[in-house]
């Protein structure tokens, strides 16, 4: 493609690729990009199109001729989606904070040599990765603890993710021992060392792990579907019911009388609202992915 336009970082020994190879690669890359991006374009376009255009087009629109925010106004003016959005934001914010804190504490404790019970606890934790408890016992436990129809049911059972724990532990272990020594000589206790040395130096890992938690809380619907009544539902579960399940949104008092927009545009608008937060945080954290994921993969 336009690779020749930029200065290629081709080493001296490597011959210039043939035009055929270049073209084939260019096509492959374009196809990859299109496969991912076109569905997004269709969703956003359809959500912005007018009812007339959607109906005329048979349900979807590639490029709206007269864009309108009607669908968004409808679903965000109170009702199920607005409420679910609030629930999702709340669960994601609180859940991520709690998970990140608990994971960091445990990861730090497990990363320091000589912590009481360190090795057995580590094995205890890793074992759960190999042998998860299973769906039915987990379900009975949540019910037994009386967490049904409480938001805690969405957070408590998934508080710490072992993979994330291992990533953070790896980062804490990667911090040079001298820094810890120096902190101790300066009279810092365990807490101070944790706050002043370990955490600030692990921002990249904390960002990645935080993102992983946030995404999983934002996306979770299964736990909500089995533990929560429908008036407590987060956005993903609403999306599942109305977009995949095809339930009529109009029937649920979602749209004001007389303001009913084509279900298709409404569905697409809900979909867009569910995707947007992920698209917003994504560019900021993207550069940390490789680092974070690989530390985890290698250390485990």
């Amino acid at each position, binding site marked *: 493609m336009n690779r020749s336009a930029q200065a290629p970082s081709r080493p001296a*020994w490597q011959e210039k690729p043939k035009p055929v190879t270049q073209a084939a*690669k260019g096509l492959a890359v374009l196809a990859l990009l299109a496969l991912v991006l076109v569905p997004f374009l269709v969703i956003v376009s359809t959500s912005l199109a007018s009812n007339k255009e959607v109906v005329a087009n*048979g349900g979807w629109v590639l490029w709206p001729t007269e864009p309108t925010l009607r669908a968004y106004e409808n679903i965000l003016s109170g009702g199920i989606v607005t409420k679910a959005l609030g629930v999702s934001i709340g669960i994601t914010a609180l859940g991520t904070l709690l998970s990140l804190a608990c994971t960091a504490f445990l990861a730090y404790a497990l990363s320091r040599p000589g912590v009481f019970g360190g090795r057995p606890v580590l094995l*205890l934790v890793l074992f759960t990765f190999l042998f998860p408890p*299973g769906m039915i*016992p987990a379900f009975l436990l949540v019910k037994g603890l009386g967490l049904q129809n409480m938001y805690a049911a969405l957070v408590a059972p998934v508080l710490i993710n072992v993979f994330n724990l291992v990533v953070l532990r790896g980062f804490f272990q990667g911090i040079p021992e001298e820094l810890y020594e120096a902190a101790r000589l300066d009279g810092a206790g365990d807490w101070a060392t944790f706050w002043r040395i370990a955490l600030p130096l692990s921002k990249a890992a904390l960002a990645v792990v935080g993102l992983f938690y946030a995404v999983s809380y934002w996306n979770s619907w*299964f736990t909500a579907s089995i533990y929560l009544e429908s008036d407590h539902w987060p956005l*993903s579960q609403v999306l*599942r019911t109305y977009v995949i399940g095809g339930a009529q949104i109009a029937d649920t008092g979602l749209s004001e009388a007389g303001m009913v927009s084509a279900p298709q545009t409404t569905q697409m608008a809900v979909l867009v609202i569910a995707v947007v937060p*992920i698209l917003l945080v994504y560019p900021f954290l993207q550069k940390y992915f490789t680092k974070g994921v690989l530390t985890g993969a290698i250390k485990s």
Partner: protein
Amino acid sequence: MLPGLVYFLVFHYGAFLGNAVAFKEYDPFAGLWGSPWVGGGNFSRMFGDPDFWHATWNTLYIAVLQLVFYFPVPLAIALLLHSLTSDLLRRFVQSVVYLPHFLSWVIVVALFQQVLSDTGLLNSFLGDSGLHTVDIIGNPDAYRPLVVAEVIWKDAGWGTIIFLAALMQVDEQQYEAAAIDGAGPWRRFWHVTLPSIRPIVVLLLIMRLGDILSVGFEQMLLQRQSVGPEVGEVLDTFVFWQGIVAGDTGYAAAAGLFKGLVGALLVFVANRVAHRLGEQGVYK
């Protein structure tokens, strides 16, 4: 450390004990510990249940499809990306292909339905062009290729990360030496690139084998109803349907426990095989 430890003790080990229900005739009024023991009753019933074997068969079928069609894709994309000389272009493509990994299955399934359902993008295009329309969503024959295509769309890009990292670590000097010895691009690819990433490919393959009984629970559950249990039921959805929807708790727990045991056994065996082959394996 304490909150984390408590979490693991309660929600993993506590829940783990709940597997005892697999050996009981669960009665919601008597509770877990008040329900009568039935020994291996649930298990013998399970082994005689054609629905259970059907779900197992579906699970293995989809797992093998994924292994054959999904597994090579991230590697292929990684090789393509690695061969791009422009850093800027490569980073851009990378950020785009990673993206679907962060969407929930609800969103991915909804996207696929929008594109492939009988009123979706593909069919309105075919219809407008005067061609035959194809029913893909809701067609049991298309279900298995469909779920594999979804997995590829969602996670193949993300899967490239580990291969790309392995490719980065290949020693430049080897390429240079090979080039000086007169090896063309294909020979370099065959004799330098592929052998260098072999260990990581083997490792991932083994991990995938160990995980073969888990084929995307959320993904399957979301679409089970549109095609029915005939092709849509896998072990995880079987457990869900029997235990949580139908309330046959003890029986479903037995199926879940069976799946967990076999899964752990497979990880163990796969790891032994890895050691035999001189690879590092998943754990020491």
